[in-house]
């Protein structure tokens, strides 16, 4: 057996292609090293270092540009869609870390490992978003998941945090098993794990109707469904979201979801058109169930974190509507919505983080009574983010939902679009409950005094608000970027 020659050029090209990932990983290692050297009172530098690292990663991703760069013999690709998701994930990570400037001080997460875990998880997301091989996607999924399990349980002393982490870990491990088993079956049928190759085999019908392959795709779908918490694979979500430190919850909702949908989109857009009749029914049912169960469960919640957890389930359902629709329009809608969701979700969590003083009952909706007028900026911001989540114009949430449901109608899924619209009407009720509490409920004697936000925290909130408004009023350029990204994938 001849040894495979070392191709230096290919290696350099491969490393070039994963430049943003390397920057993020490098920052994580730096953070861990710096953690050893820095004195206790200097730990906040770690946060600054992480912010700088993610900002550098964003710049490097922009520097790579939207052109297609393949690396590691096609295991990973930096293309337009990769760039879109890379930027979305990095933006979410950046906002999260900026909010961490304040959050870590209050909650005692001013530790090197906290930031390193966030960064490592981010790198996993980036791999997942750019992986064109099922193995890369799986490695990315594990790299993102394991740090998140730790982060959910970061408050070692709190039962709920541990309970959430345990549930998430056990179910997540199962889902990884499903995922891997699905890949194995697909490999057995197709002889490859390369997504574009599988797609081309599907197109000339060699795999069509192969039961082993279909079972593989089904299991893969189950794995994804766990990660983006589609009903009925959503059981872990409320507990994990409620138990996790709020900052981690915000990060999970925004970034993990983006990464998982990136990979799912790649698989679905490339391989599903050939077997659409079989799969679209499955996706249809999943989307309908997820939206409905998510929204109706959210109606019953009195805790903001839990309510937003169920709302994130519902939003996964909306995004799945776009996936079901498929095609350029569906893909574009999904990309745009994932971006918008990152901003509105992080923004909403950011505000409630400031207001809630204690974990657990600090997040009760009643606890927000009277906030609106005592702290008009915070009240206004939270209202804006909730209104956008509810999908009311002129916010970005409306444009995003319009595109999702529009794509469904265009592809002939009128029933699904109707269901989606009705669902978002239901959702308005629970999104307005905190608003009612903030502005209309009689203010109690001791209104909680929100923590004074650090300047970076304020900046993150304002940036999210600006994004939500700007993407709502002038969405044209972001939509075009999304469209070009999807086209680059389908070409």
């Amino acid at each position, binding site marked *: 057996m001849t040894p495979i020659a070392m191709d230096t050029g290919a290696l350099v090209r491969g490393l070039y292609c994963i430049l943003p990932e390397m920057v993020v990983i490098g920052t994580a290692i730096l953070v861990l090293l710096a953690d050893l050297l820095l004195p206790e009172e200097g730990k906040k530098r770690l946060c600054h270092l992480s912010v700088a690292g993610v900002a550098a990663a964003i710049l490097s991703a922009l520097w790579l540009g939207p052109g297609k760069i393949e690396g590691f013999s096609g295991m990973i690709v930096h293309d337009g869609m990769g760039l879109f998701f890379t930027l979305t994930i990095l933006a979410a990570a950046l906002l999260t870390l900026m909010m961490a400037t304040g959050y870590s001080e209050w909650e005692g997460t001013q530790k090197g490992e906290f930031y390193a875990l966030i960064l490592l998880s981010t790198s996993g997301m980036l791999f997942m978003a750019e992986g064109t091989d099922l193995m890369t996607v799986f490695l990315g999924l594990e790299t993102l998941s394991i740090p998140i399990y730790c982060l959910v349980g970061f408050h070692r002393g709190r039962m709920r945090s541990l309970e959430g982490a345990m549930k998430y870990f056990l179910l997540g491990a199962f889902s990884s098993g499903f995922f891997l088993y699905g890949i194995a079956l697909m490999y057995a049928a197709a002889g490859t794990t390369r997504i574009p190759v599988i797609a081309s085999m599907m197109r000339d019908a060699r795999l069509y109707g192969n039961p082993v392959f279909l079972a593989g795709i089904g299991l893969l779908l189950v794995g994804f469904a766990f990660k983006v918490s589609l009903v009925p694979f959503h059981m872990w979500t409320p507990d994990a979201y409620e138990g996790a430190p709020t900052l981690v919850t915000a990060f999970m909702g925004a970034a993990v979801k983006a990464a998982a949908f990136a990979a799912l989109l790649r698989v679905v857009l490339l391989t599903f058109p050939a077997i659409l009749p079989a799969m679209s029914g499955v996706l249809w049912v999943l989307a309908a169930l997820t939206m409905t169960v998510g929204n109706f469960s959210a109606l019953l919640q009195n805790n903001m974190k839990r309510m937003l957890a169920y709302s994130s389930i519902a939003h996964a359902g909306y995004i799945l509507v776009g996936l079901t629709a498929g095609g350029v329009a569906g893909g*574009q809608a999904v990309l745009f919505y994932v971006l918008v969701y990152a901003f509105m979700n992080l923004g909403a969590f950011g505000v409630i983080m400031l207001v809630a003083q204690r974990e657990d009952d600090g997040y009760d909706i009643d606890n927000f009574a009277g906030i609106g*007028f005592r702290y*008009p900026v915070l009240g206004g911001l939270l209202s804006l983010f909730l*209104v956008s989540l509810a999908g*009311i*114009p*002129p916010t970005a949430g*409306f*444009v995003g939902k*319009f*595109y999702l*449901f*529009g794509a469904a*109608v*265009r592809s002939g899924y*009128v029933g699904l*679009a*109707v269901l989606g*619209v*009705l669902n*978002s*009407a239901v959702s*308005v*009720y629970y999104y*307005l409950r905190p608003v*009612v509490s903030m*502005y*209309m*409920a009689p203010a109690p004697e001791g209104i909680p005094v929100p923590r004074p936000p650090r300047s970076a925290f304020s900046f993150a909130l304002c940036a999210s608000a600006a994004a939500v408004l700007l993407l709502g009023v002038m*969405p*044209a350029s972001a*939509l*075009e970027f999304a*469209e070009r990204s999807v086209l680059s994938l389908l070409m």
Partner: protein
Amino acid sequence: MGFIDNHILSLMTFLPVLGAAAILCVPRGKDDVIRWIAAAASFLPLVLSVKLLYAFDRSVAGVNVAGQFQFVEHYSWIPSINVEYFLGADGISMPMLILTALLSFLAVIGSFGIEKKVKGYMALFLLLETGMMGVFASLDFFLFYVFWEVMLLPMYFLIGIWGGPRKEYAAIKFFLYTLAGSVLMLLVLLALYFNTTNPETGGHTFNLLHYMAQSTHNGWLKGFDVRILLFLGLFIGFAIKVPLFPFHTWLPDAHVEAPTAISVILAGVLLKMGTYGLMRISFPIFPDVTRWFAVPMAVIGVINIVYGALCAMAQSDLKKMVAYSSVSHMGFVMLGMAALTPTGMVGGAMQMFSHGLITAMLFFLVGVVYDRAHHRQIDGFGGLGAVVPVYTAFVSFAFFASLGLPGLSGFIAEQMVFLGSFDVFRTIVVIAALGIIFVAAFHLWALQRVFLGPLNPKYAALEEINAREVFCLAPLGIIVMYIGVWPMPVISLMNSSLVHLVDLVKAVI
């Protein structure tokens, strides 16, 4: 001046929201500054609306003819789905634009008495004005929908924060009802978008004028049952806003809890959006279904007239009575429109304008007595005529205008509705005409109980109406009287458009 002339509708729409932005920058505690900024930001659109009135060419129709719209602004907004920023005015929207500008300004002046959280109140109010103007100026369905929704939230907050004791209930009820209507509208919007093509570009379109040209509809959209479904979806969406029976139950709650100026806007402008939407969107896009649905619409109109009047008679709360009188009066609009005759259509539009003025007066007047007595029970007063003669005169004037006394604008509108619809549905019109007796009855009965009879000693020292309140009422009264005597300026404003609309609906496609 070129800039103002070219963007007059945009300016009318967005000046208020600029004022709102300015208000948000005013430091805490300077409530008077805020009030005057708000007054200025709502006065400028009023000035522009006068300019609009003089520049408007009354001879051309508009409705579905792109070249005949005036003050047009047409740009691409979201090119990837062909959303256009398309504003324009014709005889259907002109009276509404003027009414909105006038009532908004008066409502801001009428809100000077608000002491609680002035900044938030005025900012939300101006945002609301932007939404209303935008609805009446848009000719692109997507844009229309966005403005329609933009209006929703400020209204919700204005009722929910500055309202009466049951404000939260009323606000959420208003919101959910209206939202249900919006959802239906959104579904119709999607259906129309994907089943029409822009003849110029070949892509899908949101342009309302393209929808009105039936040749842009594809085969699916030409099916009559599909058209009925879409028409009914829109109809329910608009009927909730009007509100037509049986979707009217949110209205009394919202009115009773809303602060005075907000009730004025709610009844004076927001209700008209429902009937405006029917005229602007439903009728010209689905003329065939409109003809098919004419009789049910007339029946609903009459139910509104009679049932609204009976409900009004049963109320013990003065404001609730006025609220139900709106239900009754909007029935006339529906009846006139359903007749599909030029006279009926003009009568309906006239009633929209006239009712906007009269109901605004009524709500202002109820607010005046509520501010002083802190209750609105009709039976809780008595003999006020002797204590507050000027106020009594204003109320009597408004009540007589509302019950359709000849010489005032309500009479002209109602007569035109009856004239226009009598030949079309005789029985229905006769019932409606009998309904007028109830309308007159509840007005006169309330007048008698509040102002005549022995004086309730509790109110022997009731304060007379003040100058600011007169300032809000007098312009409305003058216009009501002017139109009542010489209605031609308003009729000619909308005549050619509405005649064209009737022709359009009557033409068989």
